């Protein structure tokens, strides 16, 4: 490197840096190449540096292609920087907040900048990553306001049903909690994952570390990957102000098809007070008997769900000078759900600042206060009540408005005062949560001499979550219809206090050993504590029907749970680079965890990764190959027991049915502890390539990985006869392997018009390698289906994760030994019984699998002058889900296919001896045309009891988002003396969906755990949203 350090007569060069739209660019680094002299452009894009002729000025800014310009005679030097969609973030933030050059990394990472994150307004940081990260499977649990979303990177790494397979969220170097507890009656109500508290407008960039070598320094909590979030900081120069507002509407994007031919009654007989909503006669026949019957049936789904709204307003002010930077923001997000009486609000206030106290010492601090919460409803309850609701009545007419019964529920069987209305249920049966959270950190950085950097960070993430579930009691008025779940009135108050404290010290030393070799050494100490405390009190049976207060209840029960865990880690890193093109990094970390047995709670795990920029070595490389890198890594990751107190047995005063009066009942724990619990250990290998082609117009990133997680700590289900229900021990191994491809291309680039395309593809093969000897399988979750059609997700050794099991139609095998006892073979003919109906097989068999075969996202962005248009398509293929909503619909004659209920057919299949079936049967209820008694009919007797009928292909293709934006041109902005930028964007999310799944949007999930194969009644419908956003920069 040339050193142009000579003092010629003092000269300074100044100028203005703008982007391609002639907008000024504040915050651009302007450095004299080869020196440490430089500055940052101010708010209007201007700069001044003491440079002289012959110097090279380097202009660099995140998100823009860097430029180097030589200083000539002129003292004014302007520069135009163009957007660099491809070479984004030359410098990336990796583990522990350490900034590394991307070229030196031996593992895959993926970065997103603020623009990409905010292309479509999202309320949850996890859903903002949807479709953008190769290898990440992100599922919105449903469209409830504030509802959680789940992210899994590179497959599920744990056999344990309750295990947290999600990556660690780190904000400004400090891990934060992403819990989503369902305590206090909130299960099924769309609990929020706590990372959703992050205000996306405060985010500068997100870097996704996919596990293995990337997270080796982070230790156990990042065994499933890490999402590094860097928030905006104040920059040197004039103060910058941003204001953005969004307003949007949401609607349900998909509802099941329902029949509208048959109305209330049973076996074709009309009865307007019937419990059965649609087993009666046709609408025409009913109208002859009942003049009050409407001309057409209501579609319950269209009537029950409404249009929701969301709005967001954000203001931030930041600034600074050469020594300090300051950023502050305030925002409010509010959403009203598509389900009546649901809402969510989040208010966030943030400040952060950094000060250089001297040349060597700087301090940074930040504090973010967030308040969030809303009224949540139980999706399963709501959807189930909709199933029962007779469509001849309008479900949106949910309460009486006048008369003695004003304000009470209007049931669908009014003459007998029964028939739960789900909307009335939402109005009265409430669950409201209110979270106050403070995320703060303080950091010190000391650079005693060149090459040595000492950083200490202290972080705090504490929240208290106050939840109230309540319902009023009956009023006691004659003829009052009671909503079943309200019982006699109840209130349940839950208070959760959670606190995470992190303390991290890292010392880095870099030195150029000689011309060819650079050395980096790091050592650090990390301490972490999580404490959690929950108290719940429930009062039932109100004296005064509408006094929602514990003092009004006659039966009080309470429970408490306390938990604390601590972790200490020591780590080191050794890095060597050769001529800036060959990189070797070796790390080692040792952890001590409080959740492992005393005396055996230490575990160690190393990693090594190599990066080789081979294009620098090729003499005459083709002109289209700008950059090519090969990556390889091997890492071990240790993991402790995520649950506390698993190494000893304690008895609890929580026996079922107690307390009775003032007597408590004690019981042994249902989980048997393993006194010799060991840590889990995962081994991960990764290979990859990065290419930049055609003058950086095309970027390609390929990665292949395989990881084996051994000694999995899980609660192995054991025979109840042993005296316990589960045994938490080391048992089992799970393997994940797959391919990730990320492709970016600037297809057209002209001064006025540009077209960028990106595609990311991933597949993950997931296999349960082994389970502890003596255990056949592990049950991870289930969903109810009528009459034996319940589905469950179970893990078997040698089989993939995510299998869905249930009952099926019996298949014919000439040789019974041919039948696979575990896997259903749908190609075989169905056995038809003597009664002419298909026979059910009760053996639980694998019917489908909820893990997609591959995921692909393709996005396009067009920009013409001041207008840009972007859209992306998301594909997820090759997986199934169990639809319990359709199961209920078939039992109640609501599904569209039940319109054939009065037909007589011959079922396709063979009889018990293999002969083709010829018996005609009536599908309806009661006495058929042949005089036989068909009882409850085919759909209730047979169809609804077979799981196979409801495990559906859930693959999809969707138009995930569309955005259109317009920025006011510079000429107009100049007229206002104050505005630096003004952009208006219109966005649409989930505008189009193509899927064979018959229920709601198949992305939704009943469970927030690892059993995501259920998308039926218990799930919120997915949403289609339209929004408009205005952004102003002053």
């Amino acid at each position, binding site marked *: 490197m040339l050193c142009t350090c000579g003092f010629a007569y003092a000269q300074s060069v100044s100028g203005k840096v703008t982007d391609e739209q002639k907008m000024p660019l504040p915050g651009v680094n302007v450095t004299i190449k080869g020196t440490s002299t430089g500055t940052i452009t101010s708010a209007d894009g201007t700069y001044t540096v003491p440079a002289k002729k012959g110097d090279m000025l380097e202009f660099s800014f995140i998100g823009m292609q860097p430029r180097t310009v030589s200083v000539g005679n002129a003292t004014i030097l302007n520069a135009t920087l163009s957007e660099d969609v491809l070479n984004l973030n030359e410098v990336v933030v990796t583990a522990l907040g350490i900034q590394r050059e991307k070229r030196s990394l031996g593992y895959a990472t993926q970065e997103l900048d603020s623009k990409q994150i905010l292309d479509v307004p999202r309320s949850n940081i996890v859903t903002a990553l949807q479709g953008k990260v190769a290898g990440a499977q992100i599922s919105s649990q449903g469209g409830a306001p504030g509802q959680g979303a789940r992210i899994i990177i590179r497959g599920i790494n744990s056999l344990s049903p309750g295990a947290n397979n999600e990556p660690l969220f780190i904000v400004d170097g400090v891990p934060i909690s992403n819990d989503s507890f369902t305590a206090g009656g909130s299960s099924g109500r769309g609990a929020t994952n706590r990372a959703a508290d992050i205000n996306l407008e405060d985010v500068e960039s997100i870097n996704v570390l996919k596990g293995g070598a990337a997270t080796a320094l982070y230790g156990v909590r990042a065994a499933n990957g890490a999402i590094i979030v860097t928030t905006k900081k104040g920059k040197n120069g004039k103060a910058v102000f941003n204001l953005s507002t969004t307003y949007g509407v949401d609607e349900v994007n998909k509802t099941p098809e329902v029949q509208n031919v048959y109305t209330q009654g049973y076996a074709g007989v009309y*009865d307007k*007070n*019937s*419990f*059965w909503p649609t087993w009666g006669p046709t609408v025409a026949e009913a109208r002859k008997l009942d003049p009050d019957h409407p001309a057409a049936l209501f579609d319950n789904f269209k009537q029950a769900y409404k249009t929701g709204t969301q709005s967001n307003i954000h203001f931030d002010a930041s600034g600074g000078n050469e020594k300090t930077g300051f950023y502050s923001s305030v925002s409010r997000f509010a959403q009203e759900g598509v389900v009546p009486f649901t809402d969510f609000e989040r208010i966030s206030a943030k400040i952060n600042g950094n000060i250089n106290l001297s040349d060597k010492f700087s301090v940074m601090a930040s504090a973010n206060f967030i308040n969030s919460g809303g009224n949540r409803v139980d999706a399963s309850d709501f959807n189930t009540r909709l199933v029962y609701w007779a469509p001849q009545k309008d479900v949106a007419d949910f309460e009486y408005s006048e008369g003695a019964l004003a304000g009470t529920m209007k049931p669908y*069987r009014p003459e*007998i005062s029964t028939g739960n209305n789900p909307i009335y249920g939402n109005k009265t049966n409430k669950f409201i949560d209110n979270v106050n959270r403070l995320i703060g950190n303080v950091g010190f950085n000391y650079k005693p001499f060149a090459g*040595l950097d000492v950083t200490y960070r202290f972080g705090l993430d504490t929240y208290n979550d106050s939840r109230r579930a309540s319902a009023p009691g009956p009023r006691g008025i004659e003829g009052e219809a009671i909503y*079943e779940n309200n019982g006699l009135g109840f209130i349940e108050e839950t208070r959760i206090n959670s606190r995470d404290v992190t303390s991290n*010290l890292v*010392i880095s030393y870099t030195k150029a050993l000689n011309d060819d070799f650079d050395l980096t050494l790091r*050592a650090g100490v990390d*301490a972490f504590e999580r404490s959690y405390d929950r108290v719940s009190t429930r009062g039932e049976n109100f004296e005064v029907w509408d006094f929602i207060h514990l003092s009004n209840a006659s*039966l009080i029960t309470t429970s*408490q749970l306390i938990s*604390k*865990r601590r*972790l*200490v880690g020591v780590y080191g890193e050794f890095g060597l680079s050769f001529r800036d093109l060959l990189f070797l990094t070796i790390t080692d970390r040792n952890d001590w*965890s*409080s*959740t492992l047995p*005393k005396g055996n*709670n230490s575990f160690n795990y190393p990693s090594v990764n190599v990066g080789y920029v081979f294009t620098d070595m090729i003499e005459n490389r083709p002109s289209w190959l700008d950059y090519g890198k090969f990556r390889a890594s091997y890492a071990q990751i240790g993991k402790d027991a995520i649950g*506390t*107190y698993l*190494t*000893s047995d304690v*008895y*609890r*005063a929580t*026996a*079922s*049915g*107690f*307390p*009775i*009066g003032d*007597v408590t*009942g*004690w*019981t042994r724990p249902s989980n*048997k502890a393993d006194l010799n619990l060991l840590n889990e250990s995962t081994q991960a290998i990764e290979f990859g390539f990065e290419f930049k082609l055609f003058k950086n117009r095309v970027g390609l990133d390929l990665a292949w990985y395989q990881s084996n997680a051994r000694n999995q700590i899980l609660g192995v*289900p*054991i*025979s*109840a*006869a*042993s*005296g316990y*229900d589960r*045994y938490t021990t080391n048992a089992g191994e799970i393997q994940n392997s797959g391919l990730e491809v990320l492709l970016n291309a600037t297809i057209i680039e002209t001064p006025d018009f540009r077209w960028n395309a990106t595609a990311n593809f991933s597949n993950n093969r997931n296999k349960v390698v082994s389970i502890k000897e003596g*255990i056949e399988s592990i*049950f991870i979750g289930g969903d109810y289906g009528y*009459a*034996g059609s319940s589905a469950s997700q179970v893990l078997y050794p040698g089989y993939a994760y995510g299998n869905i099991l249930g009952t099926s139609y019996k298949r014919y095998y000439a040789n019974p030994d041919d039948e696979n006892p575990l896997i259903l073979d749908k190609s075989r003919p169905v056995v038809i019984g003597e009664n002419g109906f298909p026979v059910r097989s009760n053996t639980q068999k694998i019917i489908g699998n909820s893990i997609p075969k591959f995921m692909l996202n393709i996005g396009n962005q067009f920009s013409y002058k001041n207008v840009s248009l972007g859209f992306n398509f998301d594909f997820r293929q090759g997986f199934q889900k169990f639809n319990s909503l359709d199961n209920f619909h078939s039992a109640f004659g609501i599904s569209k296919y039940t319109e054939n209920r009065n037909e007589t057919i011959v079922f396709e299949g063979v009889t018990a001896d293999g002969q083709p079936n010829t018996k005609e049967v009536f599908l309806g209820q009661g006495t058929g045309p042949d005089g036989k008694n068909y*009882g*409850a009919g085919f759909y*209730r*007797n047979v169809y609804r009891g077979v799981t196979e009928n409801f495990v559906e292909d859930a693959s999809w293709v969707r138009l995930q988002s569309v955005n259109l934006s317009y920025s006011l041109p510079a000429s107009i902005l100049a007229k206002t003396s104050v505005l630096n930028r003004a952009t208006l964007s219109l966005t649409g999310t989930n505008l189009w969906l193509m899927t064979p799944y018959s229920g709601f949007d198949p992305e939704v999930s009943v469970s927030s755990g690892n059993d995501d194969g259920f998308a039926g009644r218990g799930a919120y419908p997915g949403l289609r949203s339209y929004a408009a956003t205005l952004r102003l920069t002053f």
Partner: protein
Amino acid sequence: MKITKYILMLSVGLFLSSCEDYLDVNVNPNGATRPPLRGLLANATYNTGDNVYTLGSTTSFYTQYLASPNQASPVDVYDRVSTSGTWGSLYDIMGDIYDMKRFASESNSFHYMGVANVLLAINLGMVADSYGDAPYSEALDFQTIVPKYDSQEQLYGVIQTLLDEGIVNLNRANEGEPLPRANDFIHEGNVKAWVKTAYLLKARYLNHLSKTASYDASAVLAAVSQAYTSNADDAQITQFQQRNPWAQVALNNANLFLGGWISEQFIDALNGKTFGVVDPRLSKITNPLPSGNFVGTANGAGRTGDGAGAQTAVYLTTNGFYSSTNSPLIIASYSESKFIEAEAAFRTGNKDRAYTAYLEGIGSNHDKVGVAAADKATFASSTAIAVGADKLTLQNIFDQKYVAIFLHPEAWVDARRFDYKYKDFTVPENSLLDGQFIRRLDYPDTERTRNSGNIPNVTLTTPLFWDK
């Protein structure tokens, strides 16, 4: 470099001294390593009673006490239902009782140990009579995660041994903790009552062997004579957190979460249709239809009409004797003991003793249910009931015992011993076992997935050893 060295030394120093203490937070604060004996007693007594309810809520369909309002409901039509919850509850409480006995023996609390034995016998008896072979010798103490199944005969031997040892311990002078009143939900700390219950159970299980060669009627009579002398001795739960679980069924039903519908078989036995005399217990158990009649639901047929609008069948009500908020949950009763005595006496040929016991069994149950003395007398002297000692048959005894132990799982044992020959008792409509009666529960799903290597090969019609 000096600074780095200092920092490193400081870190390591701080480290070694405080690391161990800092990480020593894994003692669970949500419980205790030694539970109070009376806490285990409260749990053991209450939940043994609750288990009688849990098992009864399945067996009542097989004995046609209850019927499902849905046509062809699996439990009605002898479909294989998974009873993982029942199995789990039985073994769960046996684990707690086992621990209670273990802790009690450390302090020579003999009465606790005696009670533990009696409770173990009750629960093990329910397991053996429903499932046949089941784990015991390798169970309860985590000896293995896949305990082997002991044979039913062995289990019956264990039950008698447990009861005998229990009686011995209960009769000893206590050295450790005495039985407390408030935490004993069955007998309120009354040791003598426990001894009587132990004898009644001995009689009950000895009587189960009526179809086998080893049946010893005199042993049954000997045990029964040391058992109960009046309804006041009954082993039952009378305190609940909210209400008797059958009351919850009735309350749920009233709120249209249907359940507790009474079977035609039981209703006809009391409304005069089967025996020609109306049993005054009927109106104490449930309420009539608006028409004043009592009509039950045929098992397997489901509700007639559509189940709404005017009521067409009777069900458990929140003011019925068995299903009110504070109704007793009966584990063993004086009425039952009288019928055991009647049956055993009959089998020895002592018809007089049998007849007296039979009438006392009926009358004591009338008293228990709250029938007025006049109605009780009228019923007792009706021709269907007052057949006279000479004309007394096992049919009379079983038919009347059936009514007296409504909802109890013991009735299913009787039904199988009597080959379901109650008057007018038929297989349910839409039944799945080719016209045969059900003889056992299948092993639960949890055992099939967690202990499949040990499960015997049985079907729902494989009879238990005392049913052959």
